[in-house]
């Protein structure tokens, strides 16, 4: 539903369906029937947010409670925002159309750093002060979860609470506590002090940060009994974990218009640039039977004809052969397409490719990440050119003609040869096509290089690295372009300015809060959309706040430096990351968890048990 005042403007904006709710399987509960109302906010537009699995899980989880309701909120696009501001209509939630500011909990999911200004903008559109300290009453409480809260420091001034790690269990515990404190008329401060005692709850305002003269962090001191280390939450058993069996089915086409079912969390690979891989350790697998049950239930309740099996590295799922042989006949019969994103190029067996061929054929995407073996060893990608070429040869023989390859530039120790290596590898893939005897007749090959730039992230072995400045990255992109000699290879690249801002906030500290607020007040939002990102406003904001953004990106950090996020504990130890950093610079690789346990430290979150070696040890 929407507020009555907006009705006459609905047909004046693009895609009004974004703002009205009423989709299939959306849950509408009466405010009077529940104790706690939770507004789940996605700091981007409807189409992007509706693809997000975390929101679907938490939405169903909260609505499964009789004493609580969860509604969805998205960032209005600029045309709608203009009307809302002009007509003074505060941001509303889609199910009831009620103002967001009347909810008890306002929860944001932070998936990428460039959405930070959108968070401020949404709070402001809701009619709330953006700073935590200026919101004095117990409710609404503004909380956040998602990948970026592993270093919530740049947003510490704005959030009352952040929730590092898996949200399934802690969300319920937090709602229980809030219900109790709301009933007894407690103050916000009393509640926050109590909430900080729940494992996996971080209350930024209870920590005092001191800085050294060189602007690095000197100390982070907990107050009011808050824990010295906030340990991320870890759901131990994915089979018994809450998983939704019905999704809100949008009318509008969302970015990923399909159902998604998780098959495991964590990753056995130790790619040194990959934050998700380290943050989500230890590995926890869902059983194939449970995955299949969930797939069937969701397809039945939603009517979707595509399922995506989701994880960080799908082909590492041990239950994959079992799952596919039991699920594909059913999928085929019901004309359901099964998508396997995140496949590794070195374990993509022919049988798997044949099976996938029976349903609709999508493009093949692989991620060598670096152009030479030396650099792939530095980043611990652990795949070899011969694997890449034999897999694409197999794919060409199977009728595929288009391959997409993901690469990164700006990697530590990178040289000109490594960049040439990207062009050479793409050329080798093209050559492989022409050498292939069973290639599709009369067709040409197309190899698409998708080029990203490294953003060193917290909780990775590269967290100490300097990030290339935008002009250096542009030079490297141009150089790569000059190395490509055939039109069968296309290069898609992006403006490194977004990576630069992402890098500032990824490894930022609390001093950045005022920069984010300044930039937002100047009108910055939707920074992840290239057409919206306003470089001059950001530059001016850094200058006004007296902060050098390159302090956060271009500076190589000392291994012993206190990081702004050191009081967060994601399982993997700093010592392990330091060891990996040193090995990277020596070009030494680390085997996957399946080959050998490297003692990353994450198993202690699971009671000392890691799925990976539990099975080997028996």
């Amino acid at each position: 539903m929407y507020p009555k005042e907006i009705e006459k403007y609905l047909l004046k904006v693009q895609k009004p369906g974004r703002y009205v709710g009423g989709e299939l399987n959306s849950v509408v509960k009466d405010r009077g029937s529940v104790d706690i109302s939770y507004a789940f906010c996605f700091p981007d537009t409807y189409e992007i947010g509706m693809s997000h699995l975390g929101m679907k899980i938490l939405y169903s989880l909260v609505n499964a409670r009789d004493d609580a309701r969860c509604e969805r909120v998205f960032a209005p696009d600029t045309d709608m925002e203009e009307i809302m501001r002009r007509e003074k209509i505060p941001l509303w939630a889609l199910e009831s159309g009620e103002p967001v500011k009347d909810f008890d909990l306002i929860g944001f999911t932070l998936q990428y750093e460039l959405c930070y200004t959108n968070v401020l903008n949404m709070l402001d559109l809701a009619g709330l002060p953006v700073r935590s300290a200026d919101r004095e009453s117990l409710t609404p409480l503004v909380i956040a979860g998602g990948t970026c809260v592993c270093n919530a420091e740049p947003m510490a001034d704005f959030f009352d609470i952040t929730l590092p790690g898996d949200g399934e269990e802690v969300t319920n515990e937090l709602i229980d506590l809030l219900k109790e404190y709301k009933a007894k008329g407690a103050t916000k401060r009393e509640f926050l002090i109590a909430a900080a005692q729940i494992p996996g709850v971080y209350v930024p305002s209870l920590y005092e940060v001191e800085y050294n003269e060189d602007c690095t962090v000197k100390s982070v001191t907990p107050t009011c009994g808050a824990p010295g280390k906030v340990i991320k939450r870890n759901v131990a058993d994915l089979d018994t974990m809450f998983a939704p069996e019905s999704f809100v089915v949008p009318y509008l086409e969302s970015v990923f218009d399909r159902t998604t079912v998780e098959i495991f969390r964590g990753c056995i690979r130790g790619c040194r640039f990959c934050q998700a891989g380290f943050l989500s350790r230890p590995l926890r697998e869902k059983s194939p039977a449970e995955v299949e049950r969930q797939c069937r239930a969701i397809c039945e309740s939603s009517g979707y004809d595509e399922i995506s099996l989701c994880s960080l590295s799908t082909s590492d799922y041990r239950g994959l052969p079992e799952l596919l042989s039991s699920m594909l006949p059913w999928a085929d019969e019901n004309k359901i397409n099964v998508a396997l994103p995140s496949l590794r190029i070195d374990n993509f067996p022919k049988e798997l490719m044949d099976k996938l061929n029976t349903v609709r054929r999508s493009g093949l995407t692989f991620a060598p990440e670096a152009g030479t073996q030396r650099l792939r060893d530095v980043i611990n990608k652990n795949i070899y050119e011969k694997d890449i070429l034999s897999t694409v040869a197999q794919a060409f023989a199977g009728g595929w003609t288009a391959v997409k390859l993901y690469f990164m530039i700006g990697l530590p120790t990178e040289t000109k040869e490594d960049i040439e290596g990207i062009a050479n590898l793409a050329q080798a893939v093209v050559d492989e096509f022409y050498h292939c005897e069973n290639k599709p007749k009369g067709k040409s090959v197309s190899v698409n290089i998708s080029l990203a730039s490294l953003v060193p992230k917290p909780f990775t072995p590269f967290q100490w690295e300097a990030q290339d400045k935008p002009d250096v990255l542009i030079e490297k992109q141009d150089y790569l372009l000059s190395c490509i000699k055939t039109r069968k290879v296309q290069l898609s690249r992006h403006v490194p300015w977004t990576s630069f801002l992402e890098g500032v906030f990824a490894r930022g500290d609390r001093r950045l809060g005022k920069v984010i607020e300044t930039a937002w007040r100047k009108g910055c939002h939707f920074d992840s959309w290239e057409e919206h990102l306003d470089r001059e406003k950001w530059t001016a904001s850094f200058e006004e706040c007296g902060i050098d953004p390159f302090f956060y990106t271009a500076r190589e950090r000392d291994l012993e430096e206190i990081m702004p996020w050191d009081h967060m504990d994601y399982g993997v130890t700093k010592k392990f990351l330091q060891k990996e950093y040193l090995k990277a610079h020596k070009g030494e690789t680390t085997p996957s968890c399946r080959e050998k346990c490297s003692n990353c430290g994450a198993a202690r979150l699971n009671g000392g048990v890691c799925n990976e070696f539990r099975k080997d040890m028996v």
Partner: protein
Amino acid sequence: MNSVRIWYKKSGLVIYTSHLDMNRCFTRAVRRADIPLWYTEGFNPHPYLNFLLPLPLGQSGEKEPIDIKIEEDIPLDEIGRRLNSVLPDGLEIVAVTSPVNKVNEITEARYIIDIEFASGSEAEGFASGAAAVIESGVLNAEKRSKRGIQTVNLCEFTGDFSVSYAENRVRIDTCLATGTQRNLNASLLVDSLLGEFGAQPEKVSIARKEIYTANKKIFE
């Protein structure tokens, strides 16, 4: 393979769903209802589902036709029952029939247009003004067509036209050219009439009531 015409009512929040999105919505509903839809036999098979007269964004419809093809014989009322049990609020199957007329036989449709103004005097003024414009037989507007943007006289596309008002509300009851040959979007007529007088309504609701073939016979 069986051709079936399903008739649906579209109202409430769903009117903000565009035609393309409606197509996806119904395809999924048919899957949820476990109705064996016939799939096209191409490289990329897709279910056969044809909206005969797509409703423009923001308009409601009383009885809108969709043609589907199904693989098995299922009683018509069973199809309606199954679909109604899975459709979201705002969409309802009101009839399921075997097609009688062809889509190109459609000539006109009847629309009820309700316009709400801030005051009764604005409503009164607009009602008499609109009647006079239609009476005059000339209301030129730019209309998008396959041949690009052209200026056309909307009165040539307008059949019966009556207008009434009560308090601050105006109701227009009109028949407009509809179909694959000649078609006038009711929103264009309303916007042009409002534009003539610079009127700023609080709310406009447009509902398609009935669809006709030649000589105002109900399209079946």
